[in-house]
């Protein structure tokens, strides 16, 4: 019975098994070693970071008490939101955009089998990475607080239950959203798009203009910590999980109510998702099919004609026009873009709290300005990574079976990759520059810092887009079932690891550069030092690092594609 229930997962399991089955030699072993080393460094850093965070909180204890569960509740809440968004995209792909749906829906497969298969698939693809990154954190907490042995066994089970909630929720939300989708693309859809655009514009304008309450003392900063770190609403699953963690960690009585709440919410959402999809799945699928079939094939076929052919040769122009069209028509990509924009907006909106830095005492302001500027660059770099992972990394694989058409065109692989790079770099760079600049404005940073941040954005984007493209070419998979599965693949993890390593490397010269810019604004401080020379050195290091990374990344991807052809 259980075997039948998980019938649709069998091919996936075999594929996974076979990937590791064969003896891996030479280059493959070397690649695996690099991946394992990077992963070990990252997991080790997370472990060390969480351990030290608790040490830091202990030192802070005379001023305010923040326990491991406080820290964990913040992470859990963030994880819940991110996991929901990631699940929504994956659910859309696996339930509605998958290539095997036609076959499955016409075959004698019970809907329960389809539901369980897609649920497990979405859950695994969306949760394996958060789980992997959460595990060292939990171990760090456990070791620091000397948790009992059963903490390490029981807690991962509850984390699994916790991560199932956004998966089930995303099934319901995605299906509901498709049910209200207009049957045809047209005026109605355009109006909705423009309304959304208007609302976003208004909010961004509000972000710049709105007056925020200034932080007048360290005590108010503590209040800020409270807002950020104590999501204490009893109805939040992250609260239940953090309570369970606390009881296990400090060996207190089991949090029975929280355990029952977590378990019953998971079961409730799973059963509701099944009942809801059983009733509305086919209708939602029809709605989406109807919406997607309304692709406008008429209209201007060559919208880049205005660019002279001396700047953009015909072959490249045709290629760019094709990519723009595909991007606009791709429903999954558009959804991801909206989600990323929403996330960025939430982050920027919250950055306003730092606008009051000028009211912080001068003795500590310098450190804070430095910290906030670097944090903005680092978070911005992670946003670029997210864009890279969702758009640039799968861009080559998304060509699918049409990849061979591209190869038969006058473009060779090197030019193809170059075109892909220049197709993605300007928009991603534009988004990154806007993000960094808005971040600086939201923080009330001086113009000099704003310019430095924008410059850093342009340079770092260059490197990350290069890595994404290189990884996308190296791990290219043209036989995907649905486009969103590419993001959660092994190649996706390697891209994230490489990108994090790259951001860490970039942070050194960026930190130095921003530090010098901030310092130059301090009156009479370090007046004898030559900021100009040091700034130039840091800029040269940053630019060289990014250019080198892009070149090497794209070259490796290019070689792999050529190897596959031969």
């Amino acid at each position: 019975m259980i075997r039948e229930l998980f019938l649709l997962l069998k091919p996936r399991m075999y594929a996974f098994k076979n990937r590791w089955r064969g003896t891996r030699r030479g280059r493959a072993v070397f690649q695996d070693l690099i991946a394992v080393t990077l992963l070990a460094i990252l997991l080790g850093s997370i472990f060390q970071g969480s351990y030290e965070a608790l040490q830091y909180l202990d030192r802070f204890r005379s001023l305010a008490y923040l326990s491991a569960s406080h820290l964990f509740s913040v992470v859990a809440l963030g994880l819940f939101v991110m996991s929901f968004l990631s699940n929504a995209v994956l659910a859309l792909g696996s339930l509605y955009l998958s290539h095997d749906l036609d076959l499955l829906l016409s075959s004698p497969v019970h809907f329960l089998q389809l539901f369980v298969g897609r649920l497990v698939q979405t859950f695994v693809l969306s949760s394996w990475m958060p789980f992997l990154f959460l595990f060292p954190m939990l171990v760090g907490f456990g070791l620091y607080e000397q948790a009992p042995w059963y903490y390490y066994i029981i807690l991962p089970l509850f984390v699994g239950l916790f991560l199932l909630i956004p998966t089930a929720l995303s099934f319901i939300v995605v299906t509901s959203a498709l049910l209200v989708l207009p049957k045809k693309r047209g005026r109605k859809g355009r109006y909705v798009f423009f309304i959304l655009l208007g609302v976003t514009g208004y909010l961004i304008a509000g972000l710049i203009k709105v007056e925020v309450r200034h932080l007048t003392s360290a005590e108010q900063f503590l209040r800020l910590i409270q807002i950020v770190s104590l999501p204490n609403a009893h109805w939040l699953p992250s609260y239940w999980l953090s309570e369970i963690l606390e009881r296990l960690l400090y060996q207190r009585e089991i949090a029975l109510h929280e355990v029952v709440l977590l378990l019953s919410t998971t079961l409730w959402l799973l059963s509701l998702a099944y009942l809801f999809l059983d009733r509305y799945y086919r209708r939602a699928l029809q709605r989406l099919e109807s919406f997607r079939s309304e692709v406008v094939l008429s209209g201007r076929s060559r919208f880049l004609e205005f660019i002279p052919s001396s700047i953009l040769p015909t072959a490249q122009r045709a290629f760019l026009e094709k990519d723009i069209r595909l991007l606009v028509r791709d429903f999954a990509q558009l959804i991801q873009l909206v989600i990323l924009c929403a996330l960025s907006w939430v982050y920027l909106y919250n950055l306003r709290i730092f606008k009051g830095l000028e009211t912080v005492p001068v003795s500590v302001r310098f450190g804070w300005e430095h910290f906030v500027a670097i944090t903005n660059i680092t978070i911005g770099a992670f946003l670029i990574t997210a864009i890279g992972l969702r758009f640039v990394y799968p861009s080559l694989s998304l060509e699918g079976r049409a990849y061979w058409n591209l190869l038969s065109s006058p473009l060779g692989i090197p030019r193809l990759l170059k075109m892909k790079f220049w197709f993605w770099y300007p928009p991603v760079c534009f988004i990154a520059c806007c993000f960094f600049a808005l971040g600086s404005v939201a923080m009330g940073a001086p113009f000099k810092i704003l310019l430095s941040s924008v410059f850093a954005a342009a340079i770092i984007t260059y490197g990350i887009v290069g890595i994404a493209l290189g990884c996308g070419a190296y791990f290219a998979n043209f036989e995907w079932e649905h486009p969103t599965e590419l993001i959660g693949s092994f190649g996706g993890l390697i891209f994230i690891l490489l990108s994090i390593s790259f951001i860490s490397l970039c942070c050194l010269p960026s930190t130095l550069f921003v530090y010098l810019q901030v310092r130059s604004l301090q009156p009479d401080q370090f007046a004898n030092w030559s900021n100009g020379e040091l700034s130039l050195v840091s800029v040269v290091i940053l630019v060289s690092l990014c250019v080198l990374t892009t070149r090497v990344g794209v070259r490796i991807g290019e070689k792999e594609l050529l190897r596959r052809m031969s």
Partner: protein
Amino acid sequence: MFKHARFFALFVFFFSSVSFASAYYFLEKEQTDSELSDFPLVLGKQRYFFGSDAGCVGEATVTVGLENERPSIEAEMNFRVKLFEKKLEIPAEFTAHFNALNQLGGSFFSMKFADVVVVFGTTNISPIRLSLQVRKSESLLFKKELSLPGPVEIRHQGGGLYELAFPESVQTLSGRVPPVLEGLLPAVERNTGSNCVESREYWDLAPLLEYEKLLPANPFRFLGELE
């Protein structure tokens, strides 16, 4: 199984709905009932009265302030006690300060009768370091230092009403106080002690002293010094 999948899902749906509702109800009840103290504090100045079986045995003026969004409590108290046939008026003071996270950062309590001074203070947020000292004419009669799990928080209940929330371990500790002893302590009433004007009674400490051996470190030993 596949035939009855819908019924099974419906059963799970209703079963989980019921268990969710009941667990949430108990969680809320637990949060509101046991964690918070039975002593509501109102923003601004309020008068409280201490009543025992005999009648009104003391008054307190409690001021709950909010300076820079940090709550603070200041109280001036006056107890009337009867000990070894002696009738005493005991003035006492209490101050507590909370940080921006509403956690108790420090508190201080002092009371004086005859030439004996009882001082009780807490420092640190978690664990709370508690210190009790009894002095008589500059000489130390009793000293005890304890470490209690924290933090104690003051929570805003809306409408200018605040309540103190104690960590679970402190509740467990207070639960161990014998009910007989609890009955001997005066009850606190807000603004309803009109009988205090008419009947100013004295709180007899003699029954309380009979239970002194139940308490750790014999804290009432110093009372013998009054004789």
